[in-house]
């Protein structure tokens, strides 16, 4: 817990240089990464994926299949890493935990009335505890965007702190749903609130709202993490989620991560991609590098 005296005054507005952020974010897409570095970058990105299925139509069979995929991404390519975690609804945590066994892949569960977050706090706490009791290693919560936009920052702060407490040993990812916060100023403020309230990760989006993760919004959050680290000495992890489906874009994110937070963050303890179709695109690029031949989705397992 962070001592009260260093918690900033959230009622003062955050100021993010919109033009500067967007210009800087676009610079990261201009780096040329080829051959060996590309292969290493792609493997690292693969290892940072939270392979996700969050559909109303999810079944146990679908979750088992996803867990199998998480462990066997593309068996014809020896020495591939696995993904970091599988991300499911609380009702599927037990199934995922059993299916993943001792593979070392973590189970992440969304909670707190995902994706809207429109539920009373006791329901959110029970939702969280249910996920953790069933074996979730990580909990992805959503903040109450309505309350945040009304200016009820204390409510949001207390809610995150309460969920953190309910998580116990599980790591807490706080989803800001940046697409609903609209401005970078609000994203920055929500990031600060989440980190001071006890988040282990800050995460951009649920994937249910467009726009989801973008490079500028991720940059704002990475800078918030950097400033928080300088102030408190505590490392916070980052998870952009939603809309990252191409290997090339994933590499751009890694470039940004490296240039903002540095090498200490370049592993799956401190950075994740929330994605479902990204894994296959990365696998296709890796196979292209290995065989020299452009690949077809027909030869990769469905996600």
């Amino acid at each position: 817990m962070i001592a009260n005296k260093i918690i900033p005054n959230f009622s003062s507005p955050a100021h993010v240089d919109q033009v500067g952020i967007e210009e800087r974010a676009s610079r990261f897409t201009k780096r040329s990464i080829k051959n060996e570095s590309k292969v290493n970058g792609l493997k690292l990105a693969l290892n940072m994926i939270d392979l996700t299925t969050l559909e109303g139509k999810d079944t146990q069979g679908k979750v088992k299949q996803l867990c199998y995929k998480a462990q066997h991404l593309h068996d014809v390519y020896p020495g591939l890493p696995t993904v970091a975690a599988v991300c499911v609804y609380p009702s599927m945590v037990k199934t995922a935990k059993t299916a993943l066994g001792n593979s070392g892949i973590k189970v992440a569960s969304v909670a707190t009335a995902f994706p809207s977050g429109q539920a009373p706090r006791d329901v959110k706490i029970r939702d969280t505890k249910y996920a953790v009791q069933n074996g979730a290693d990580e909990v992805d919560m959503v903040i109450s965007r309505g309350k945040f936009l009304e200016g009820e920052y204390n409510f949001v702060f207390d809610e995150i702190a309460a969920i953190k407490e309910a998580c116990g040993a599980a790591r807490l990812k706080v989803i800001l749903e940046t697409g609903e916060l609209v401005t970078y100023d609000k994203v920055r403020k929500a990031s600060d609130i989440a980190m001071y309230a006890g988040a282990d990760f800050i995460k951009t989006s649920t994937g249910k709202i467009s726009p989801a993760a973008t490079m500028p919004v991720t940059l704002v959050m990475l800078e918030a993490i950097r400033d928080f680290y300088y102030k408190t000495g505590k490392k916070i992890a980052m998870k952009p989620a939603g809309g990252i489906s191409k290997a090339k874009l994933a590499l751009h994110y890694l470039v940004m991560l490296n240039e903002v937070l540095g090498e200490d963050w370049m592993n799956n303890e401190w950075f994740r991609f929330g994605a479902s179709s990204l894994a296959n695109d990365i696998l296709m690029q890796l196979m292209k590098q290995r065989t020299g031949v452009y690949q077809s989705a027909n030869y990769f397992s469905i996600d």
Partner: protein
Amino acid sequence: MATTEKRLEVLKTYKIYIGGQFPRTESGRYYLATNSKKEKLANICLSSRKDFRDAVSAARGAFGGWSGRAAFNRGQILYRIAEMLEGRKAQFVDELMKQDADKAQAEKEVNLCIDRLIYYSGWCDKFQQLFSTVNPVASSHFNFSNPEPTGVVAAIAPQENSLLGIVSLIAPIIAGGNTCVVLASNTKPLCAVTFAEVLNSSDLPGGVVNILTGKIAELAPYFADHMDVNATVYCETDAATQNMIKEKSALNVKRVVLYDKVKWNDATAQSPYFIMDLQEIKTTWHPIENIGGAKAGY
């Protein structure tokens, strides 16, 4: 005051055609197209393998919609392409004349292209009946075979014609429900790019036809070994390239079609067999109660 000012002519930028858009090549490379009098005609995109990759993913994206369309509607769209070509005849005649044809030859070639599109437009919803069969089998099954499109076709157009070759090649490919990436003639690329504008202003969905300009030697290996391409078509006679295409196509068992003896000006260059070259035959066994003559079978 007498003015002798000459107006600066606005020259056309010849770009490539991918997914219904006209991008420049991602490589930023160009080559100069000239005619036999060494007159400069235009700067033409020297497409790279990445342009081809992008074109294949556009073609793959368009395949479901195009192959799933009613055959009759595909016929309507081919007819529409012919209509659009008719309306821009003068431009094509002009381009053909720049590329060494005389006026009579040029007009003949454009007319032939329009007629060929109409011809394949008519075949769109008719070749299936002609090439489907009901097969006699020795069990209680209704057994039938019918053609289905092969998928994404990567085709290298004939070099000798600017327009007729590419039109004669594309029409049967898309009439059969395939989508394609076509490499235009290297020495006579002008009409191919203008034809892309015709395609774009007809009702053809973006991505069904993608047109690149560039070098055969550079791009042919990728046409043959891309895993997401289902067939490769090559219209030249170079034996080494033919063998290379056959070898590389074996990687994902692509269909290879070599049109090295086709005379594109000739009436023999249009037939439903060109459509059938890029079709797969699917056979279905449908169980039925009885196939005896006296009783109700199916």
